[in-house]
Every structure is written in structure tokens, then in C-alpha cells.
């Protein structure tokens, strides 16, 4: 079942496979939230939230980051629920339960819910030390 082929042919084959894999990864990124259709989230809007991590639910079928966001000085913070991929998927990208520690200051970008509810689909996050997670261009 094994064939011997010239190294040049093998290199081209690997290049093609590499391109296919890259295309697949790019096309596959929406599957991060795959347990349900994502039509409740605005796909053409990004909202930036700054607050502190209340909880990181590293659970199936989706992970959730609960962030307390200060909206008005002196007023109680608003809790946002931010949906992300499954721990199975995220762990293969280096994400761990400790990635979002309780009490950590963070700025998060989300695709917000269309109806204005305090929830969204995770895009990316930046911590005070400059470290970023997800898409942060």
C-alpha cells in the first residue's frame, strides 16, 4: 500500500495538501460555534466590551465567558455572556480553563445579539499585559 515517489513529486503533493488544509481551516472557522445556528448574532457588527472576568465555563457544547462590564460610573456592572467553541476544539488551539481567570481585566470583541441582549459570539480578547486571544487585528 505504500508507493515510492520522487521527492519533488512528494513536495508538490505536500504543498497541495497544505493549501487544502489552510483553505479548510479558514472555511471551517465558523464551526467553532456549531451546536446551533448563529443567526441570533449580528454578523456585520463587532462590539468591544471592557470589564472583568466573572467566570469561564469551559464546557460542552459551548464555552461561555461571563464578563462584568462597567457601563456607567458608579452603577452596577452589566453581566455579558460570551459564547465560544467547545473545550474540545479550543483546547487544540491552546486554550485552557485558566485562559480567562476570575477577576482578570479584559477587553473582549463580540458579535452581539441582534436584539440588544447582553450576549454575543466571541471574536477576540486582549488582556492588560497585551496578550491577545482569538482574532485581534
Amino acid at each position, binding site marked *: *500500500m505504500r508507493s515510492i515517489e520522487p521527492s519533488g513529486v512528494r513536495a508538490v503533493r505536500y504543498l497541495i495538501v497544505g493549501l487544502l488544509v489552510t483553505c479548510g481551516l479558514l472555511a*471551517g472557522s465558523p464551526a467553532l460555534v456549531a451546536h446551533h445556528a448563529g443567526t441570533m448574532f449580528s454578523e456585520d457588527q463587532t462590539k468591544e466590551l471592557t470589564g472583568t472576568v466573572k467566570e469561564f465555563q469551559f464546557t460542552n457544547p459551548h464555552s461561555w465567558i461571563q464578563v462584568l462590564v462597567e457601563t456607567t460610573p458608579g452603577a452596577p456592572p452589566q453581566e455579558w455572556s460570551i459564547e465560544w467553541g467547545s473545550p474540545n476544539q479550543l483546547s487544540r488551539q491552546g486554550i485552557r480553563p485558566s485562559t480567562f481567570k476570575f477577576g482578570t481585566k479584559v477587553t473582549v470583541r463580540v458579535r452581539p445579539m441582534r436584539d440588544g441582549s447582553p450576549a454575543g459570539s466571541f471574536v477576540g480578547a486582549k488582556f492588560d499585559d497585551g496578550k491577545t486571544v482569538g482574532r485581534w487585528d
Partner: protein
Amino acid sequence: MKLLGGACVCVLLTAALVSAQSQSRDALPDWTGVWQMMGGTVFDRATAKSEGGVLTRGQREQPPYNAEWEAIYQRNLKLRDDSRLPDPINTCGTPAGFPRLMNLPDTYEFVVRPEQTWILTENGPNTLRIYTDGRAHPAPEDRWPTYTGDSVGHWEGDTLVFDTVSMRMSRYPESGDTVLDRTGLVLSDAAHVVTRLRKVNDELMEARMVIEDAKALTAPWNVTKTYRRLQKGTRVYDYACAENNRNPVDAATGRTLILGPDGKPLGDVK
């Protein structure tokens, strides 16, 4: 003694028959490893003409549906756009079903044995058993619709060719029957799938499916799914869908909900 001798001959003949029909262990291909489907979980990417991914709205071209089933699909697309498609797997209680099983995120394993091949999906989890011991499908009166249906196959060189029937399909996603993806693709109980599964090279698996459905389709529908190998040592985990399902389906409206931190639905639930 004669009886014993006869029984022995019978056992030997049966063993020889089974051995002749199933591939010997040494001749089986090596499909070990952990794999992941390439592309989003839209069932047939080749038919997408613009948007239509799991997170995006938009119209898609159809499979070769007849007029009746195209109308059903258009209805489902509208439900999807309104977050009201009652996708059975949102309930975390039933298998994805075949052929959706070939269209899932997370990992795949292809376990090849002489008498059976198993496709194990992390998402779900789901198991598809493909019998390669020479058996045929049960007679129509001896089978009933199940999520994964009944699959029997044989080897053509390194390609596993298998035939799947008796899947639990209908036009009504509300019934909990299998839908093929988030866009609301459905088939009828007459659906019949022939799949050619092979390893293209050490990095790529390919499943070529020919789907026929005399009630819903006007022509065979060809779909190809590919799977890339993940790095060596990749672990496969539990997928306990009910662990923290904050996206249940509201029974009254069919709407997929988002539950807030207090367990109550967020936003407009009507």
C-alpha cells in the same frame, strides 16, 4: 459422530465464506489517527452560491430537489434565518444521524476491522457501523428507520464502498428526524446513500457520497467531504452536549434560545 462431523464441516464452510467476503487483517488500509472535517458544517459546500455558513444568513442553491421538496427546503431556510429551525441536535438527546454524521465539527476516527469499520465522531458522540462481513441489508420488513440507518460495505482495493439505507428521515424537522445541516436540508425515507471512503494520502481522508432519493430528488446528488489528519498525539474528549446547553429549543415557538447566567432566556423569546 456423523452429526458432529457435519457440524464441523458446516462451521468450516461458514468460516471460509466469511473469510472470503471480508478483507484479511493484513490487507486492510491503515486509517489510524485523529481527523477533522475540512470546511464549515454546511453539508454540500459545492452548492453554496454566496453565504450560507453556519453563522451566516443567505440563500444557497439546492440539491436537485423536486418542486415539492424545494419548497420544504425554502421553508426551512426561512426558519433557520429566524432562529426557529427545530434542529434535532440542539436538544442534546439524539444522534446526528447519517449522512449528517459525515458533516460534524470536532474529531473523527476511522477504525478498520476485518468484519466492520467504525466511524467515531467526537461531536455527539456518534458511531457509524459498517458491516463488511458479507452480510446484506435486512429485508425491508425486518428493518425500521434509525438515525444512522443500516450500512453494509466491501473493499475495492483501499477504498471502502458502503451502502446505507433505512435512515430516519422526513420532511419535518419538528419530528426529530435527521436534518443534514444547519440550513435545514432534509431528505425522505426513500434516501439511499453509496459512500466511497478512502485515504487519499497520509494527511487526507475523502468520502464521496452519491445520494439518491426517489421522493425528494430529481437526480443523484454527489457530495464529497474531506478530513485532514490532526497532529500525532491528539486526544479525543467527551462531548457531553447536555453538560451546559445554554441554547435549548423553546418547545412553544421552536426558537433556539440563549440562556443568561441565571438560566433564563435572554432577549425576545416570542
